């Protein structure tokens, strides 16, 4: 079937080429790069596609790569930035892999890695990965593995932590972050009475954050005898649902979507003074706040709010994977290990690096905002406290459904618990539609 498909494409291509010739606009301005031919006179050429921010004031990816290229004349790397969404990038890479012209390396989120593997886009690089294993935290390293085989190296992590404004907390008479669910909810009600909120409910992040929070106390997806055992309605999930439902019912939580300007406004106007957030959100809080509460914010570990017993879960974070067609996986991995251990450069891009080769230092402006706290070490603690959470292939469809359902809970037309029941049916459907077996 595959070869028939190829033949069809070749046929279409021939017709296309013919029409091109007739149109008389054949081959001028053919400035394409020669990605297909990646080796040239002993020099190995590696291509790397990413979607890192590369924002003003950051160390640009191209500048980091230039350092490598200078030191390694025999392995030349070319980085390209993809200016679109993650799902669009995967779609493009999928097409590229089919036609054999994909880059050697590409950024892939942990939640999408199994999906990208299932789509046949990855190359087994276990033999090269082993030697770099000790450069990275073990949790993230295992997230780049599928079925015990490695497909790249981890780049950054997104452990969930708690951001809060300590000074505002003290003003409300909350001396420390409440550690139990009931204490927390009581404190949230107290704060809400004063027009302040110590938690946010973010419907557009449900797929990432709520799954991470529920996952802190145990995973949803397990493999048994080559079949998926799906249970998204775990005790952890129920605890999360109960926690947020109580807060929503008491109107003691903000419901602004995370990426809507109203969320930024709620930090800026001092209304939102505490929330669960992924580690990589620290610099974003700084820009959103416009200085409100600078020096007063702190980072704390999650309390035991979801039956999580001190554990936390993942929200976001990416690996860089070696794609199927790469002719030079060894060199690609050599570069990748170097790139993913450029800790201070990656920190400048707003990442919490997965590498453990040196201590990531908290940038000065971060620690100014967070009251002089060494927040990087808090993030590291969180990283080491991360529960095991395996994502299933096709998780992006589940996450999308969770967001939609979460929005209904925020306006009262649904319940938080619905998120998890929808996740269950969508998970099972997705796996079945991919032709994978599900143990019921």
């Amino acid at each position: 079937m595959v070869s028939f498909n190829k033949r069809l494409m070749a046929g279409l291509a021939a017709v296309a080429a013919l029409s091109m010739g007739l149109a008389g606009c054949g081959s001028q301005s053919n400035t394409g790069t020669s990605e297909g031919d990646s080796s040239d006179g002993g020099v190995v050429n590696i291509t790397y596609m990413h979607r890192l921010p590369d924002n003003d004031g950051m160390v640009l990816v191209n500048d980091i790569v230039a350092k490598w290229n200078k030191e390694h004349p025999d392995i030349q790397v070319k980085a390209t930035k993809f200016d679109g969404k993650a799902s669009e990038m995967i779609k493009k890479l999928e097409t590229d892999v089919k036609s054999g012209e994909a880059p050697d390396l590409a950024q892939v989120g942990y939640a999408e890695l199994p999906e990208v593997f299932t789509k046949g886009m990855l190359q087994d690089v276990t033999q090269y990965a082993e030697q770099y294993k000790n450069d990275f935290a073990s949790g993230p390293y295992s997230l780049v593995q599928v079925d015990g085989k490695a497909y790249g190296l981890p780049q950054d992590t997104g452990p969930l932590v708690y951001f809060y404004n300590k000074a505002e907390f003290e003003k409300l008479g909350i001396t420390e972050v409440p550690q139990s669910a009931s204490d927390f909810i009581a404190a949230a009600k107290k704060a809400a009475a004063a027009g302040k909120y110590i938690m946010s409910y973010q419907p557009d992040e449900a797929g990432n954050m709520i799954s991470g929070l529920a996952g802190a106390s145990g995973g949803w997806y397990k493999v048994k005898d080559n079949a998926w055992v799906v249970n998204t309605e775990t005790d952890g999930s129920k605890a999360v649902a109960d926690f947020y439902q109580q807060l929503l019912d008491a109107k003691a939580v903000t419901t602004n979507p995370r990426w809507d300007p109203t969320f930024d406004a709620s930090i800026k106007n001092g209304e939102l003074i505490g929330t669960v957030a992924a580690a990589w959100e620290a610099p974003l809080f700084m820009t959103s706040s416009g200085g409100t509460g600078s020096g007063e914010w702190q980072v704390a570990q999650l309390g035991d709010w979801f039956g999580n017993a001190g554990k936390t879960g993942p929200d976001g974070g990416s690996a860089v994977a070696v794609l199927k067609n790469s002719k030079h996986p060894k060199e690609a991995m050599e570069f990748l290990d170097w790139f993913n251990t450029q800790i201070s450069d990656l920190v400048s891009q707003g990442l919490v690096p997965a590498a453990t080769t040196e201590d990531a230092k908290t940038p000065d402006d971060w620690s100014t905002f967070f009251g002089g706290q060494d927040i990087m070490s808090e993030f590291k603690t969180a990283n080491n406290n991360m529960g095991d959470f395996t994502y299933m292939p096709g998780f992006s469809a589940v996450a999308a459904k969770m967001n939609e359902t979460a929005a209904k809970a925020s306006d009262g037309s649904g319940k938080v618990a619905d998120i998890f029941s929808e996740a269950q049916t969508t998970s099972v459907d997705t796996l079945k539609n991919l032709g994978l077996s599900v143990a019921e």
Partner: protein
Amino acid sequence: MSTVNVDSKEARAAARARKKADKIRDQHANDLPRSMQPSALVKTVTVVVLVAALIYFLFPIYWAIIASTKTPSEMTGSNGLWFAVGITDLPGAIAKNYSTLLGWTRGQFWRWVLNSLIYSGVSALIGTLVAVMAGYATAKFNFRGKNIAIGVIMGCMLMPAALLTIPQYSIFHAVHLTNTMLSIIIPCCVSPFGFFLGRVYAQTSVPNELLEAARIDGASEARIFFTIVLRILAPAMVTIFLFLFVATWNNFLLPLMMVSSDTLKPVTLGLYGMVSLATFTDRGALMMGALLGVLPVIVLFLGLQRYWQAGLAAGAVKG
């Protein structure tokens, strides 16, 4: 276009026809209906309606101009109707967002604007010409398969163009044209809509008598088209050109798939990149990018003004 071979008989015939069209147009250019004196009430109501509409269309743009000078926190925390900083600090605020914009586009912003101009200009030029030619062909000639062709084009208009991007990408990949300028220009210069506009205007405003007269004078079909028909269709062509130009200018899905080299990207890709990264909150810089991107379109629009007046030859022969 018309002065290549002045000696030939058809050239002279075409020149005559053109002169005639010009003369008629000049007569009509000053011929404003002065006798239609509107009452004061009608005039007031008209002005009020037009100005109200203008406010509706321009207010969001005014807001965007103000927003383009703001930092993320000023966007949400300050009065939306006015600058967040004093007039003296304004250049600094603008410079800051401008540098964010340049930083985001990795210093390639103006290069990308130039790319966009090339993509939009070339594809709109080719697209307008082929669309008008095809529209004219179906409006004024009988040929085999004409109705099928019209039906197919009409039918394809119903197919969501964005979904064709993936197959287009595969096809261009197969002929090794991805990551080239052509991979954007070729898809963008085909517009069923342009074809239909060309057809409708050719049907309604190119008089058969004029064509017959030119043929009797011995002008060739090509010459008739390029010297007479194109002039009559000028307003329609301006409309098609603007449509294609803006459509190409605003397209991001196609370049997103087709090009990966930084030097080939159009400016919308940079803007879309900002939007698509959820963590990007510097929307002031985004607004500035969008507004700077609108400038060439404004210049183009103003530059095309005079062609709007060129359509008065429509009744040339009848009159």
